[in-house]
């Protein structure tokens, strides 16, 4: 990447997320601007949806992007950067919701992991689901309950495979395949919708 060190914005914007991430780790702060432009909407959207407060969402978005410089460890071989930041954002947002000791209702919502299948949906999320397009709702409805759950737990809740296995009572060895097949199915039902 030596010849790219004198980056212009144009050259930077041609780089993959993985390259930008490594560049950022090497001290090229310009890479952060591009990563921000690509993913800030996702990070802010998830933060806002989980925290329900614009100021807190901004604050978390800032934390997520600044932490990319030092504190995070993205493995570009395992998966997409976008999913990495999405799961990181959700996880940090949930941490913040949990630490709001003054808002008991939130605490009640997040603490009981054992039956979070029914309870993890906050009013904000519920609102969002009502705003989901008809196409997405229709596609999701064509997945079985467990297919929806496994996707939700893996991506949206960011749970590990063993946690998902425990919650859903599915053998650990099948979680990965089940999750991938569920996503594949969802993607197929949304084929006409994704352009």
């Amino acid at each position, binding site marked *: 990447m030596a010849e790219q060190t*004198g980056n212009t914005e144009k050259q930077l914007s041609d780089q993959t*997320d993985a390259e930008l991430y*490594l560049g950022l780790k090497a001290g090229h702060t310009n890479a952060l*601007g591009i990563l921000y432009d690509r993913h800030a909407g996702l990070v802010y959207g998830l933060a806002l949806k989980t925290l329900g407060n614009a100021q807190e969402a901004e604050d978390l978005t800032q934390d997520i992007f600044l932490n990319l410089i030092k504190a995070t460890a993205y493995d570009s071989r395992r998966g997409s950067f976008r999913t990495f930041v999405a799961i990181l954002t959700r996880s940090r947002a949930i941490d913040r919701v949990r630490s709001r000791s003054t808002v008991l209702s939130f605490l009640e919502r997040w603490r009981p992991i054992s039956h979070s299948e029914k309870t993890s949906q906050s009013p904000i999320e519920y609102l969002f689901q009502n705003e989901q397009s008809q196409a997405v709702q229709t596609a999701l409805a064509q997945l079985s309950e467990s297919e929806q759950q496994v*996707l939700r737990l893996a*991506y949206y809740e960011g749970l590990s495979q063993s946690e998902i296995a425990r919650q859903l009572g599915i053998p650990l060895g099948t979680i990965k395949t089940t999750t991938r097949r569920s996503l594949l199915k969802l*993607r197929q039902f949304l084929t006409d919708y994704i352009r």
Partner: protein
Amino acid sequence: MTWSMSSEHLQLLIAGYVLGDLDPDEAAEFERHLMEHPAIAAEVSQMQKALELSYAPEVEPPAHLRSAILSAAHEQLSVSNTPLAAVKRPSRQFSWSRAMNVAAAVAIVALGINNYRLWQTLQASQAETQRLAALTYSLQGTKAGNGASAIVVVNPNNLEAVLTVKNLPPLPPGKVYVLWTVLKQDAPFTTDSKSAILTEVFTVDSQGNISQTIVVPKAFRSQGLVSNVAVTVEDAASPQQHQGAPVMITNL
């Protein structure tokens, strides 16, 4: 781009990449597919979109946030390069057209992966270095430096050491003490004719004591290369001449 272009196996690999759960073998296979068929990048993007449409809607953050984050980042990083161009992004309700551009960039993700591996190798070798235990050298006074003693505690990881000297006679003006790292005969380092590397020039206080942090040669990272550590008296103007006999040395 037609849906039927790829095998289900490949589609599941793509799903795994989007979900971020590829194991190393799968990652290698995915990388190979991606290099052979750059169009897979578009599939990755669409799979990502399907997931996010359902679970993670984008919301445009307030405009001021970008500059706030970037200036905080610049403050955080002392290493700065070319000034950041103030690129005003068009406002976007939905960024998937952009995401398709990103998908094109993902097509050369293999390059990123290769760089990443180099980086990992570097990290691994650094991690190797980080595990080196501290080395302690105890120096005793020779006849010339009777009653003196010194301890050198070396951290091979950052090549810093703490030199603590006791009871070494203060020197007349124009003379200094020199700490030498003496290497084995065939050690692959540049040394003087006495197999020594000038490590630190120092003086002592009126009581003959000193304690200071010094930087030591890389040779301390290779076990067995350092045969001993010694202190001599040298001319302040040319301590590198290494004229003096040891006043303190290890392994007496």
